[in-house]
Protein backbone atom coordinates (compact mmCIF):
# COMPACT_ATOMS: atom_id res chain seq x y z
CA UNK A 1 0.00 0.00 0.00
CA UNK A 2 2.90 2.34 0.83
CA UNK A 3 6.13 1.52 -0.90
CA UNK A 4 9.41 3.48 -0.68
CA UNK A 5 12.36 2.44 -2.85
CA UNK A 6 15.73 4.15 -2.34
CA UNK A 7 14.09 7.44 -1.48
CA UNK A 8 16.36 10.38 -0.86
CA UNK A 9 15.07 13.76 0.27
CA UNK A 10 16.92 17.03 0.72
CA UNK A 11 15.66 20.38 1.95
CA UNK A 12 17.92 22.59 -0.16
CA UNK A 13 21.31 21.19 0.86
CA UNK A 14 20.20 19.49 4.06
CA UNK A 15 19.87 15.77 3.74
CA UNK A 16 16.83 14.42 5.60
CA UNK A 17 16.28 10.94 4.20
CA UNK A 18 18.86 8.82 2.35
CA UNK A 19 18.14 5.70 0.28
CA UNK A 20 15.11 4.83 2.32
CA UNK A 21 13.40 1.58 1.43
CA UNK A 22 10.39 0.11 3.24
CA UNK A 23 6.89 -1.15 2.64
CA UNK A 24 3.68 -0.97 4.60
CA UNK A 25 1.31 -3.64 3.38
CA UNK A 26 -2.37 -3.34 2.61
CA UNK A 27 -4.41 -3.38 5.80
CA UNK A 28 -1.33 -3.14 8.01
CA UNK A 29 -0.97 -0.88 11.03
CA UNK A 30 2.64 0.23 11.51
CA UNK A 31 4.56 2.77 13.58
CA UNK A 32 7.30 5.21 12.70
CA UNK A 33 9.49 6.49 15.49
CA UNK A 34 12.70 8.38 16.05
CA UNK A 35 14.08 11.49 17.69
CA UNK A 36 12.70 14.92 17.01
CA UNK A 37 13.88 16.39 13.72
CA UNK A 38 14.85 13.05 12.21
CA UNK A 39 12.35 13.34 9.38
CA UNK A 40 9.14 11.57 10.40
CA UNK A 41 6.88 14.36 9.25
CA UNK A 42 8.92 14.68 6.06
CA UNK A 43 8.43 10.99 5.35
CA UNK A 44 4.68 11.34 5.78
CA UNK A 45 4.64 14.43 3.54
CA UNK A 46 6.29 12.38 0.82
CA UNK A 47 3.38 9.95 1.03
CA UNK A 48 0.74 12.60 0.33
CA UNK A 49 2.88 14.49 -2.18
CA UNK A 50 3.29 17.62 -0.09
CA UNK A 51 7.01 17.08 -0.69
CA UNK A 52 8.57 15.32 -3.63
CA UNK A 53 11.53 12.92 -3.36
CA UNK A 54 14.83 13.95 -4.91
CA UNK A 55 15.64 10.37 -5.75
CA UNK A 56 13.88 7.03 -5.61
CA UNK A 57 10.30 5.97 -6.08
CA UNK A 58 7.21 6.09 -3.92
CA UNK A 59 4.00 4.23 -4.68
CA UNK A 60 0.92 4.91 -2.56
CA UNK A 61 -2.33 3.01 -3.11
CA UNK A 62 -1.22 2.32 -6.64
CA UNK A 63 -0.24 5.92 -7.44
CA UNK A 64 3.33 6.56 -8.48
CA UNK A 65 4.09 9.79 -6.64
CA UNK A 66 6.78 10.97 -9.04
CA UNK A 67 4.50 10.60 -12.03
CA UNK A 68 1.57 12.43 -10.48
CA UNK A 69 0.30 15.44 -12.37
CA UNK A 70 -0.78 18.54 -10.50
CA UNK A 71 -4.37 17.79 -11.38
CA UNK A 72 -4.31 14.27 -9.97
CA UNK A 73 -2.72 15.10 -6.61
CA UNK A 74 -6.13 15.91 -5.04
CA UNK A 75 -7.42 12.47 -6.03
CA UNK A 76 -4.46 10.77 -4.35
CA UNK A 77 -5.05 12.84 -1.22
CA UNK A 78 -8.68 11.78 -1.05
CA UNK A 79 -7.40 8.28 -0.44
CA UNK A 80 -5.11 9.45 2.33
CA UNK A 81 -6.47 10.70 5.66
CA UNK A 82 -3.98 12.82 7.55
CA UNK A 83 -3.75 13.67 11.24
CA UNK A 84 -1.46 16.68 11.01
CA UNK A 85 1.10 17.29 13.72
CA UNK A 86 0.14 20.99 13.65
CA UNK A 87 -3.61 20.17 13.47
CA UNK A 88 -4.49 22.61 10.66
CA UNK A 89 -7.90 23.29 12.12
CA UNK A 90 -9.82 26.28 10.80
CA UNK A 91 -10.67 28.60 13.63
CA UNK A 92 -13.47 30.35 11.81
CA UNK A 93 -15.42 27.12 11.44
CA UNK A 94 -17.12 25.01 14.05
CA UNK A 95 -15.93 21.53 14.97
CA UNK A 96 -18.71 20.14 12.80
CA UNK A 97 -17.73 22.23 9.78
CA UNK A 98 -14.04 21.44 10.21
CA UNK A 99 -14.75 17.75 10.02
CA UNK A 100 -17.37 18.19 7.30
CA UNK A 101 -14.84 19.99 5.10
CA UNK A 102 -13.16 16.67 4.31
CA UNK A 103 -16.47 15.47 2.83
CA UNK A 104 -17.61 18.71 1.20
CA UNK A 105 -14.78 18.55 -1.29
CA UNK A 106 -16.48 15.44 -2.59
CA UNK A 107 -19.78 15.71 -4.38
CA UNK A 108 -21.66 14.40 -1.39
CA UNK A 109 -25.20 15.01 -0.21
CA UNK A 110 -25.41 17.37 2.80
CA UNK A 111 -27.58 14.90 4.64
CA UNK A 112 -25.03 12.12 4.28
CA UNK A 113 -22.29 14.53 5.29
CA UNK A 114 -24.22 15.37 8.42
CA UNK A 115 -24.75 11.75 9.33
CA UNK A 116 -21.13 10.74 8.75
CA UNK A 117 -19.73 13.72 10.63
CA UNK A 118 -21.94 13.20 13.67
CA UNK A 119 -21.10 9.52 13.64
CA UNK A 120 -17.35 10.09 13.67
CA UNK A 121 -17.67 12.85 16.29
CA UNK A 122 -19.44 10.35 18.47
CA UNK A 123 -16.54 7.94 18.02
CA UNK A 124 -14.02 10.53 19.21
CA UNK A 125 -16.47 11.53 21.95
CA UNK A 126 -16.94 15.09 20.76
CA UNK A 127 -20.51 15.02 19.49
CA UNK A 128 -21.61 17.40 22.21
CA UNK A 129 -19.00 19.95 21.06
CA UNK A 130 -20.00 19.89 17.40
CA UNK A 131 -21.04 23.53 17.31
CA UNK A 132 -18.12 24.92 19.24
CA UNK A 133 -15.20 26.70 17.60
CA UNK A 134 -11.83 24.91 17.91
CA UNK A 135 -10.17 27.72 19.87
CA UNK A 136 -12.55 26.95 22.75
CA UNK A 137 -11.43 23.33 22.89
CA UNK A 138 -8.61 21.85 24.94
CA UNK A 139 -5.49 20.60 23.16
CA UNK A 140 -6.62 17.01 23.43
CA UNK A 141 -10.07 17.84 22.11
CA UNK A 142 -8.55 19.66 19.15
CA UNK A 143 -6.42 16.62 18.51
CA UNK A 144 -9.51 14.46 18.40
CA UNK A 145 -11.21 16.79 15.95
CA UNK A 146 -8.21 16.40 13.65
CA UNK A 147 -8.42 12.64 13.96
CA UNK A 148 -12.13 12.72 13.20
CA UNK A 149 -11.51 14.84 10.10
CA UNK A 150 -8.83 12.45 8.87
CA UNK A 151 -11.09 9.44 9.32
CA UNK A 152 -14.46 10.75 8.24
CA UNK A 153 -13.89 10.18 4.53
CA UNK A 154 -12.96 6.52 5.19
CA UNK A 155 -9.58 6.79 3.48
CA UNK A 156 -7.58 3.83 2.18
CA UNK A 157 -4.52 5.04 4.03
CA UNK A 158 -4.49 6.87 7.34
CA UNK A 159 -1.38 8.80 8.35
CA UNK A 160 -1.16 10.06 11.93
CA UNK A 161 1.63 12.43 12.89
CA UNK A 162 2.08 12.42 16.67
CA UNK A 163 -1.63 11.82 17.25
CA UNK A 164 -1.41 11.49 21.02
CA UNK A 165 1.07 14.25 21.69
CA UNK A 166 -1.51 16.22 23.63
CA UNK A 167 -3.42 13.44 25.25
CA UNK A 168 -3.36 11.88 28.70
CA UNK A 169 -2.77 8.16 29.05
CA UNK A 170 -6.46 7.24 29.12
CA UNK A 171 -7.40 9.26 26.08
CA UNK A 172 -4.29 8.04 24.29
CA UNK A 173 -5.46 4.53 24.84
CA UNK A 174 -8.92 5.34 23.55
CA UNK A 175 -7.44 6.95 20.45
CA UNK A 176 -5.08 4.04 19.87
CA UNK A 177 -8.06 1.74 20.06
CA UNK A 178 -9.81 3.93 17.53
CA UNK A 179 -6.90 3.51 15.11
CA UNK A 180 -7.03 -0.22 15.64
CA UNK A 181 -10.72 -0.26 14.85
CA UNK A 182 -10.16 1.74 11.71
CA UNK A 183 -7.40 -0.63 10.78
CA UNK A 184 -9.61 -3.63 11.48
CA UNK A 185 -12.06 -2.24 8.89
CA UNK A 186 -9.31 -2.47 6.29
CA UNK A 187 -7.59 0.91 6.37
CA UNK A 188 -3.81 0.92 6.20
CA UNK A 189 -2.51 2.98 9.13
CA UNK A 190 0.91 4.55 9.65
CA UNK A 191 1.47 6.37 12.95
CA UNK A 192 4.51 8.57 13.61
CA UNK A 193 5.29 9.04 17.28
CA UNK A 194 8.06 9.60 19.84
CA UNK A 195 6.25 7.82 22.55
CA UNK A 196 7.17 4.17 22.92
CA UNK A 197 4.10 3.56 25.07
CA UNK A 198 1.96 3.96 21.99
CA UNK A 199 3.41 0.95 20.19
CA UNK A 200 4.64 -1.22 23.02
CA UNK A 201 2.65 -4.37 23.33
CA UNK A 202 0.79 -3.86 20.06
CA UNK A 203 2.61 -6.61 18.21
CA UNK A 204 2.89 -4.28 15.19
CA UNK A 205 5.93 -3.36 13.14
CA UNK A 206 7.84 -0.27 14.26
CA UNK A 207 10.30 1.56 11.97
CA UNK A 208 13.04 3.34 13.88
CA UNK A 209 14.37 6.36 11.97
CA UNK A 210 17.86 7.62 12.75
CA UNK A 211 20.48 9.46 10.71
CA UNK A 212 18.40 9.72 7.55
CA UNK A 213 17.49 6.07 7.40
CA UNK A 214 15.66 3.22 9.08
CA UNK A 215 18.11 2.12 11.71
CA UNK A 216 16.10 -0.91 12.71
CA UNK A 217 12.67 -2.47 12.49
CA UNK A 218 11.16 -3.98 15.63
CA UNK A 219 7.88 -5.44 16.70
CA UNK A 220 6.13 -3.43 19.39
Amino acid at each position, binding site marked *: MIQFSDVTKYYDDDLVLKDLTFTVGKGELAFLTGPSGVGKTTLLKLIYA*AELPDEGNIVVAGWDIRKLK*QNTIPYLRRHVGIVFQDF*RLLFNKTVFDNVAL*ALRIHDMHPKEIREDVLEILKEVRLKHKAHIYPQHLSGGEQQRVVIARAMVSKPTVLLADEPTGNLDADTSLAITNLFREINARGTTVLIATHSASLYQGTGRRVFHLRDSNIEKETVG
Partner: protein
Amino acid sequence: MRIFLYSLQTALKSIWHEKWINLLTVLSISIGLLILSSFIVITLNMDSVLQRWSKSFGLVAYLDEDLTKEAESTLEELLRQDEDILEVRYISKDRAAQEIQTILGDDARILEDFRENPLPSSFELRLKTELLDPELVRKKAEAIQEMSGIEEVQYGEKWLSSLSTIAQMMKMGTVFLGCAIFTAIIFITYSTIKIFFYRRKDEIETLKLLGATKSFIRLPFLLEGLFIGTTGGLISAFALFGLYSVVLVKIPELLPSVTILILSLPLEAYISVTLAGALMSFTGSFFAVGKIRY
Protein backbone atom coordinates in the same frame (compact mmCIF):
# COMPACT_ATOMS: atom_id res chain seq x y z
CA MET B 1 -23.75 20.60 -8.44
CA ARG B 2 -23.52 20.24 -4.67
CA ILE B 3 -20.00 21.54 -4.91
CA PHE B 4 -21.35 24.52 -6.80
CA LEU B 5 -23.98 25.12 -4.13
CA TYR B 6 -21.37 24.85 -1.40
CA SER B 7 -19.10 27.30 -3.25
CA LEU B 8 -22.01 29.66 -3.66
CA GLN B 9 -22.72 29.43 0.04
CA THR B 10 -19.07 30.10 0.84
CA ALA B 11 -19.06 33.06 -1.55
CA LEU B 12 -22.23 34.52 -0.06
CA LYS B 13 -20.85 34.15 3.45
CA SER B 14 -17.68 35.93 2.44
CA ILE B 15 -19.67 38.66 0.70
CA TRP B 16 -21.63 39.24 3.89
CA HIS B 17 -18.63 38.86 6.16
CA GLU B 18 -16.57 41.40 4.20
CA LYS B 19 -19.51 43.60 3.34
CA TRP B 20 -17.73 46.94 3.66
CA ILE B 21 -14.84 46.14 1.37
CA ASN B 22 -17.32 44.58 -1.03
CA LEU B 23 -19.61 47.57 -0.91
CA LEU B 24 -16.69 49.87 -1.65
CA THR B 25 -15.62 47.73 -4.57
CA VAL B 26 -19.15 47.52 -5.93
CA LEU B 27 -19.60 51.29 -5.71
CA SER B 28 -16.26 51.98 -7.40
CA ILE B 29 -17.23 49.67 -10.21
CA SER B 30 -20.64 51.23 -10.64
CA ILE B 31 -19.23 54.75 -10.65
CA GLY B 32 -16.71 53.74 -13.30
CA LEU B 33 -19.36 52.11 -15.43
CA LEU B 34 -21.73 55.04 -15.01
CA ILE B 35 -19.09 57.49 -16.20
CA LEU B 36 -18.33 55.30 -19.17
CA SER B 37 -21.93 54.70 -20.15
CA SER B 38 -22.79 58.39 -19.81
CA PHE B 39 -19.92 59.16 -22.12
CA ILE B 40 -21.10 56.57 -24.60
CA VAL B 41 -24.63 57.98 -24.52
CA ILE B 42 -23.35 61.52 -25.14
CA THR B 43 -21.19 60.33 -28.02
CA LEU B 44 -24.05 58.39 -29.56
CA ASN B 45 -26.33 61.39 -29.31
CA MET B 46 -23.68 63.66 -30.77
CA ASP B 47 -23.29 61.24 -33.59
CA SER B 48 -26.99 61.07 -34.33
CA VAL B 49 -27.23 64.84 -34.25
CA LEU B 50 -24.32 65.08 -36.65
CA GLN B 51 -25.93 62.53 -38.89
CA ARG B 52 -29.11 64.52 -38.98
CA TRP B 53 -27.30 67.74 -39.66
CA SER B 54 -25.29 66.29 -42.43
CA LYS B 55 -28.42 64.79 -44.00
CA SER B 56 -29.84 68.24 -44.46
CA PHE B 57 -26.48 69.52 -45.51
CA GLY B 58 -26.05 70.59 -49.09
CA LEU B 59 -24.16 72.59 -51.63
CA VAL B 60 -25.35 75.78 -53.16
CA ALA B 61 -24.27 76.40 -56.73
CA TYR B 62 -24.74 80.05 -57.75
CA LEU B 63 -25.31 80.59 -61.42
CA ASP B 64 -23.74 83.08 -63.78
CA GLU B 65 -25.66 86.34 -63.90
CA ASP B 66 -26.36 86.27 -67.62
CA LEU B 67 -27.38 82.66 -68.03
CA THR B 68 -30.32 82.03 -70.35
CA LYS B 69 -33.36 80.05 -69.28
CA GLU B 70 -32.36 77.26 -71.66
CA ALA B 71 -28.83 77.10 -70.32
CA GLU B 72 -30.23 76.96 -66.80
CA SER B 73 -32.46 73.99 -67.58
CA THR B 74 -29.70 72.10 -69.40
CA LEU B 75 -27.54 72.64 -66.35
CA GLU B 76 -30.36 71.44 -64.10
CA GLU B 77 -30.80 68.38 -66.28
CA LEU B 78 -27.08 67.71 -66.10
CA LEU B 79 -27.08 67.94 -62.30
CA ARG B 80 -30.11 65.69 -62.01
CA GLN B 81 -28.30 63.04 -63.98
CA ASP B 82 -25.39 63.11 -61.55
CA GLU B 83 -25.66 59.99 -59.43
CA ASP B 84 -24.06 61.62 -56.39
CA ILE B 85 -26.75 64.22 -56.17
CA LEU B 86 -29.99 63.22 -54.52
CA GLU B 87 -31.98 66.36 -54.95
CA VAL B 88 -31.77 69.47 -57.01
CA ARG B 89 -33.79 72.54 -56.11
CA TYR B 90 -33.83 75.53 -58.37
CA ILE B 91 -34.01 78.87 -56.64
CA SER B 92 -34.68 81.75 -58.91
CA LYS B 93 -33.51 85.31 -58.27
CA ASP B 94 -37.00 86.28 -57.14
CA ARG B 95 -37.37 83.37 -54.84
CA ALA B 96 -34.00 84.14 -53.29
CA ALA B 97 -35.12 87.68 -52.68
CA GLN B 98 -38.31 86.45 -51.03
CA GLU B 99 -36.44 84.11 -48.81
CA ILE B 100 -34.09 86.86 -47.74
CA GLN B 101 -37.10 89.03 -47.03
CA THR B 102 -38.66 86.47 -44.73
CA ILE B 103 -35.39 86.05 -42.92
CA LEU B 104 -34.62 89.73 -42.54
CA GLY B 105 -38.17 90.94 -41.98
CA ASP B 106 -38.24 94.70 -41.73
CA ASP B 107 -34.58 94.95 -42.44
CA ALA B 108 -35.31 93.70 -45.92
CA ARG B 109 -35.70 97.33 -46.89
CA ILE B 110 -32.01 97.40 -47.66
CA LEU B 111 -32.87 95.39 -50.75
CA GLU B 112 -35.06 98.19 -51.97
CA ASP B 113 -31.97 100.32 -52.36
CA PHE B 114 -30.97 98.17 -55.30
CA ARG B 115 -32.59 99.02 -58.55
CA GLU B 116 -32.26 95.49 -59.66
CA ASN B 117 -32.40 92.30 -57.60
CA PRO B 118 -28.72 91.65 -56.79
CA LEU B 119 -29.18 88.03 -55.84
CA PRO B 120 -28.14 85.34 -58.33
CA SER B 121 -30.24 82.30 -59.18
CA SER B 122 -28.93 79.12 -57.70
CA PHE B 123 -29.30 75.37 -57.35
CA GLU B 124 -29.48 73.81 -53.92
CA LEU B 125 -28.01 70.36 -54.12
CA ARG B 126 -28.35 67.55 -51.63
CA LEU B 127 -25.62 64.92 -51.79
CA LYS B 128 -25.83 61.22 -51.16
CA THR B 129 -25.07 60.38 -47.54
CA GLU B 130 -22.09 58.24 -48.50
CA LEU B 131 -20.48 61.37 -49.78
CA LEU B 132 -20.73 63.27 -46.52
CA ASP B 133 -17.08 63.28 -45.80
CA PRO B 134 -15.35 66.66 -45.81
CA GLU B 135 -12.80 65.61 -48.41
CA LEU B 136 -15.36 64.08 -50.80
CA VAL B 137 -17.65 67.05 -50.46
CA ARG B 138 -14.77 69.36 -51.34
CA LYS B 139 -13.95 67.32 -54.46
CA LYS B 140 -17.57 67.32 -55.57
CA ALA B 141 -17.84 71.04 -55.02
CA GLU B 142 -14.75 71.61 -57.16
CA ALA B 143 -16.13 69.41 -59.90
CA ILE B 144 -19.41 71.33 -60.02
CA GLN B 145 -17.53 74.61 -59.97
CA GLU B 146 -15.86 73.56 -63.23
CA MET B 147 -19.19 73.22 -65.04
CA SER B 148 -19.99 76.09 -67.37
CA GLY B 149 -22.63 78.45 -66.16
CA ILE B 150 -21.68 78.02 -62.51
CA GLU B 151 -20.36 81.14 -60.90
CA GLU B 152 -19.51 79.78 -57.48
CA VAL B 153 -20.14 76.79 -55.26
CA GLN B 154 -20.55 77.28 -51.56
CA TYR B 155 -20.59 74.67 -48.89
CA GLY B 156 -20.00 74.62 -45.16
CA GLU B 157 -16.53 73.20 -45.45
CA LYS B 158 -15.29 74.35 -42.06
CA TRP B 159 -18.45 73.26 -40.36
CA LEU B 160 -18.46 69.88 -41.89
CA SER B 161 -14.85 69.11 -41.20
CA SER B 162 -14.85 70.37 -37.63
CA LEU B 163 -18.07 68.52 -36.84
CA SER B 164 -16.72 65.27 -38.12
CA THR B 165 -13.42 65.86 -36.31
CA ILE B 166 -15.34 66.38 -33.08
CA ALA B 167 -17.32 63.22 -33.69
CA GLN B 168 -14.12 61.29 -34.39
CA MET B 169 -12.46 62.61 -31.26
CA MET B 170 -15.46 61.80 -29.13
CA LYS B 171 -15.43 58.26 -30.45
CA MET B 172 -11.73 57.85 -29.82
CA GLY B 173 -12.10 59.38 -26.39
CA THR B 174 -14.86 56.91 -25.59
CA VAL B 175 -12.78 53.96 -26.68
CA PHE B 176 -9.85 55.20 -24.62
CA LEU B 177 -12.04 55.84 -21.58
CA GLY B 178 -13.63 52.42 -22.03
CA CYS B 179 -10.25 50.68 -21.97
CA ALA B 180 -9.15 52.70 -18.94
CA ILE B 181 -12.32 51.97 -16.97
CA PHE B 182 -12.38 48.30 -17.88
CA THR B 183 -8.78 47.98 -16.75
CA ALA B 184 -9.62 49.83 -13.56
CA ILE B 185 -12.51 47.46 -12.83
CA ILE B 186 -10.27 44.46 -13.41
CA PHE B 187 -7.68 45.91 -11.02
CA ILE B 188 -10.22 46.84 -8.34
CA THR B 189 -11.73 43.36 -8.29
CA TYR B 190 -8.28 41.83 -8.52
CA SER B 191 -7.10 43.56 -5.37
CA THR B 192 -10.30 42.93 -3.43
CA ILE B 193 -10.35 39.23 -4.26
CA LYS B 194 -6.60 39.00 -3.64
CA ILE B 195 -7.17 40.31 -0.11
CA PHE B 196 -9.83 37.67 0.51
CA PHE B 197 -7.59 35.03 -0.96
CA TYR B 198 -4.72 35.92 1.38
CA ARG B 199 -7.05 36.05 4.34
CA ARG B 200 -8.09 32.50 3.63
CA LYS B 201 -4.62 31.25 2.80
CA ASP B 202 -4.49 28.79 5.71
CA GLU B 203 -7.87 27.44 4.81
CA ILE B 204 -6.79 27.00 1.21
CA GLU B 205 -3.64 25.15 2.28
CA THR B 206 -5.74 22.80 4.39
CA LEU B 207 -8.23 22.30 1.59
CA LYS B 208 -5.40 21.32 -0.75
CA LEU B 209 -4.14 18.78 1.77
CA LEU B 210 -7.59 17.33 2.21
CA GLY B 211 -7.82 16.70 -1.53
CA ALA B 212 -9.83 19.64 -2.83
CA THR B 213 -9.57 20.19 -6.58
CA LYS B 214 -8.42 23.48 -8.02
CA SER B 215 -11.89 24.37 -9.16
CA PHE B 216 -13.27 23.71 -5.69
CA ILE B 217 -10.75 26.18 -4.31
CA ARG B 218 -11.26 28.75 -7.05
CA LEU B 219 -15.00 28.71 -7.44
CA PRO B 220 -16.02 30.70 -4.34
CA PHE B 221 -13.63 33.51 -5.31
CA LEU B 222 -14.79 33.57 -8.90
CA LEU B 223 -18.42 33.63 -7.78
CA GLU B 224 -17.67 36.45 -5.40
CA GLY B 225 -15.96 38.42 -8.17
CA LEU B 226 -18.87 37.75 -10.45
CA PHE B 227 -21.29 38.92 -7.79
CA ILE B 228 -19.33 42.12 -7.17
CA GLY B 229 -19.19 42.94 -10.88
CA THR B 230 -22.80 42.12 -11.57
CA THR B 231 -24.00 44.18 -8.63
CA GLY B 232 -21.78 47.08 -9.68
CA GLY B 233 -23.11 46.78 -13.21
CA LEU B 234 -26.74 46.63 -12.08
CA ILE B 235 -26.35 49.67 -9.85
CA SER B 236 -24.82 51.67 -12.68
CA ALA B 237 -27.53 50.49 -15.07
CA PHE B 238 -30.21 51.72 -12.68
CA ALA B 239 -28.35 54.98 -12.10
CA LEU B 240 -28.02 55.44 -15.85
CA PHE B 241 -31.72 54.83 -16.30
CA GLY B 242 -32.54 57.36 -13.58
CA LEU B 243 -30.14 59.95 -14.91
CA TYR B 244 -31.36 59.48 -18.45
CA SER B 245 -35.01 59.80 -17.50
CA VAL B 246 -34.27 63.05 -15.66
CA VAL B 247 -32.26 64.41 -18.58
CA LEU B 248 -34.97 63.48 -21.08
CA VAL B 249 -37.51 65.43 -19.07
CA LYS B 250 -35.31 68.32 -18.03
CA ILE B 251 -33.47 69.20 -21.24
CA PRO B 252 -36.51 70.35 -23.23
CA GLU B 253 -37.70 72.18 -20.11
CA LEU B 254 -34.47 74.05 -19.51
CA LEU B 255 -33.42 74.55 -23.10
CA PRO B 256 -36.57 74.62 -25.21
CA SER B 257 -34.62 75.94 -28.18
CA VAL B 258 -32.50 72.82 -28.31
CA THR B 259 -34.44 70.49 -30.47
CA ILE B 260 -31.89 67.74 -30.21
CA LEU B 261 -33.48 64.39 -30.53
CA ILE B 262 -32.10 62.26 -27.76
CA LEU B 263 -31.96 58.60 -28.59
CA SER B 264 -33.93 56.51 -26.19
CA LEU B 265 -31.69 53.87 -24.64
CA PRO B 266 -32.60 50.31 -25.55
CA LEU B 267 -32.82 47.59 -22.91
CA GLU B 268 -29.71 46.06 -24.45
CA ALA B 269 -27.72 49.07 -23.32
CA TYR B 270 -28.58 48.40 -19.67
CA ILE B 271 -27.91 44.70 -20.06
CA SER B 272 -24.55 45.46 -21.67
CA VAL B 273 -23.53 47.69 -18.77
CA THR B 274 -24.35 44.91 -16.32
CA LEU B 275 -22.60 42.26 -18.39
CA ALA B 276 -19.53 44.45 -18.82
CA GLY B 277 -19.26 44.81 -15.06
CA ALA B 278 -19.72 41.09 -14.54
CA LEU B 279 -17.18 40.13 -17.19
CA MET B 280 -14.49 42.56 -16.03
CA SER B 281 -14.84 41.54 -12.39
CA PHE B 282 -14.80 37.90 -13.29
CA THR B 283 -11.56 38.47 -15.19
CA GLY B 284 -10.11 40.36 -12.22
CA SER B 285 -10.97 37.62 -9.75
CA PHE B 286 -9.67 34.98 -12.13
CA PHE B 287 -6.26 36.64 -12.16
CA ALA B 288 -6.41 37.25 -8.40
CA VAL B 289 -6.81 33.56 -7.62
CA GLY B 290 -4.03 32.78 -10.07
CA LYS B 291 -2.35 29.46 -10.48
CA ILE B 292 -2.93 26.92 -7.75
CA ARG B 293 -0.12 24.49 -7.05
CA TYR B 294 -0.16 21.54 -4.73
